[in-house]
């Protein structure tokens, strides 16, 4: 790095500023060292020294060295040691008092420095084994957490005085009411998209009125609950992980325990209850707004009037479809809340870990929601629920 531009500002006595690199000059049996034996100066020298060769007896003359820091001193010592090991005899001479002091200090720590073993590299098999082990451990851990949560939930339902109402209402507000605009907007747009895409196909056959079936069934049964779950996982699931994770980093969780407050009851239960109450409501809200979006497009682009639409709706979409959709919502809610809280408790260490667990939490929650949704579809298919009107 060129720092010579700094020099004029700094006056005399600032040898460290000059950008002369460390140098070596071999004449006869003497190596004349010069320049700056500092972090900045020795990078080229290091490579030079690795290929250094000389006669049997050699002396290093350090009288021309301008500045030296511990890195430079160590490099010199290392070279001296390597040469001695190779059977040379090495003498250091002419070093300034402060430089030889530094050499002395570094020499004292030589054993510590050289005992450093590079940390063992994991081989592939070990990595696979470790990850597999961790993966199954995590599953068992998570199941234990789910079990514990439901015990707490059951106990709270049996004696409602255990429920922290204030925390519950705060969660209802932040995860539910505050999410209305974004869920409404996205559901509306989904309805619009469905009506457009479906309508353009159906109108080829003059079957415009079936837009009602398409929009109604897909939204009520599948898309509205799924969409709501994904937004809630992104909004609230991540927040749960971050909150609990940060509390773990700062030992607040342990503080709660020592104060005789069960973290499960204070932190997990209100979140779990709030989401279980909220998700069906949010899902129903998404149903309504989504249908409105579909109705608007059907009316504007495909000549299905609002009256026709509403007329057709009860015939096209059975109550079962609506109930199936709403019924899935609390299950999704439980998944999101439990994964969010569990990942929060998994945080260990510092800020870095919080970020990692939040990512894991959102990805896992959305993944599990979609998997469970697919399982529901298969299950309902077997049971023959809602497929035939």
């Amino acid at each position, binding site marked *: *790095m060129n*720092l010579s*531009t*700094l020099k004029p*500002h*700094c*006056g005399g*006595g*600032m040898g*460290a*500023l000059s950008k002369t690199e460390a140098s070596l000059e071999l004449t006869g049996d003497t190596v004349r060292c010069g320049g700056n034996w*500092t*972090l*900045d100066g*020795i*990078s080229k020298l*290091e*490579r030079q020294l690795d290929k250094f060769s000389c006669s049997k007896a050699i002396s290093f003359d350090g009288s021309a060295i301008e500045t030296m*820091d*511990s*890195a430079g001193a*160590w*490099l010199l010592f*290392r070279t001296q040691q390597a040469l001695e090991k190779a059977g040379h005899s090495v003498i250091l001479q002419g070093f300034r008092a*402060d430089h030889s*002091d*530094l050499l002395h*200090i*570094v020499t004292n*720590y030589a054993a*510590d*420095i*050289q*005992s*450093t073993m*590079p*940390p063992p590299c994991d081989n592939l098999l070990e990595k696979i084994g470790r990850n597999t082990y961790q993966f199954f451990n995590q599953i068992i851990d998570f199941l234990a957490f789910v079990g514990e949560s439901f015990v707490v939930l059951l106990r709270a339902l049996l004696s409602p005085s255990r429920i922290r109402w204030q925390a519950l209402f705060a969660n209802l507000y932040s995860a539910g009411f505050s999410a209305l605009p974004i869920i409404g907007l996205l559901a509306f747009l989904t309805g619009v998209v469905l009506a457009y895409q479906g309508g353009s196909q159906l109108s080829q056959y003059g079957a415009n009125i079936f837009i009602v079936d398409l929009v109604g069934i897909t939204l009520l049964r599948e898309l509205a609950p799924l969409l709501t779950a994904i937004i809630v996982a992104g909004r609230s699931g991540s927040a749960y992980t971050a909150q609990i994770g940060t509390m773990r980093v700062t030992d607040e969780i342990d503080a709660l325990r020592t104060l005789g407050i069960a973290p499960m009851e204070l932190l997990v239960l209100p979140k779990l209850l709030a989401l279980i109450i909220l998700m069906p409501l949010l899902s129903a809200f998404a149903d309504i707004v989504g249908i409105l979006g579909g109705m608007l497009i059907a009316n504007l682009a495909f000549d299905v009037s609002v009256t026709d639409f509403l007329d057709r709706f009860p015939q096209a979409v059975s109550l079962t479809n609506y109930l199936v959709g709403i019924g899935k919502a609390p299950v999704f809610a439980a998944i999101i809340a439990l994964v969010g809280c569990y990942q929060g408790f998994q945080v*260990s*260490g*510092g*800020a*870095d*870990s919080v970020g990692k667990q939040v990512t894991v939490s959102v990805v896992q929650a959305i993944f599990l929601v979609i998997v469970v949704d697919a399982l529901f579809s298969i299950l309902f298919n077997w049971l023959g629920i809602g497929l035939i009107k």
Partner: protein
Amino acid sequence: MPIETVIEISNLRTQFGAMVIHEGLNLKIQRGEIIALIGDSGAGKSTLMREIILLEKPDAGLIKVFGLDVLNLNEKQCLWLRRRCGVMFQQGALFSSLTVAENVAVPLCEHTQLSKRLIDEIVAFKIALVGLPASARDKYPAQLSGGMIKRAAVARALALDPEIVFLDEPTAGLDPIAALALDELIVRLKESLGLTIVIITHDLDSLWAVTDRVAVLADKRIFAVTSIRELTQLDHPWLRNYFHGPRGRAVANKYKKIND
């Protein structure tokens, strides 16, 4: 050896909103000394340190470090200055996702073009220098005790062989044995590497054991800069409370006995 001033602060004024922290503050710090900064909590000790190390800007006044006016620096000068100042923050501020060795290696990897082998060796040297066992090298900050975190933070501050080291409450929250060891480390660093060390501390033991001079920050300015022995003789209400309370007296008697 001529006395060389490495930090010079004159007529400094700092205020947060309507609250004035420093007013007409002057201080000179010389090369190779250990100087402690004492004062009430909230008197602006840490703020003063943060202003010297370019983390905050004062409202008026002049701060010169190595003759450079820190309020008028270009990018290169900034970097140059930062490389010559090592800082240990109160809580260590180690990067939690990196091991101790990686923490110490960060500045070396960032600012030098040395080989990995040499960097590893320099890191090992710094870690040994601050008295951490080799087993601590590959541990994460969360796995370390308070004393070890502070040592690791000192090792990181020393990574680039700085000329000035700032230590913010190095012994706070440590047990007496760890605190004593850290005090010894500070003195050893000054003597062996010729460092200039600026300490913010409340530890009376440290004040007696390690400092060459003590600067007292009271009434928004540096009220006195002198050796601790002379400081105890001064007549100032705050100093009286500080040094002549039961704790202050006990420590003072101990060190006076040792020195006499």
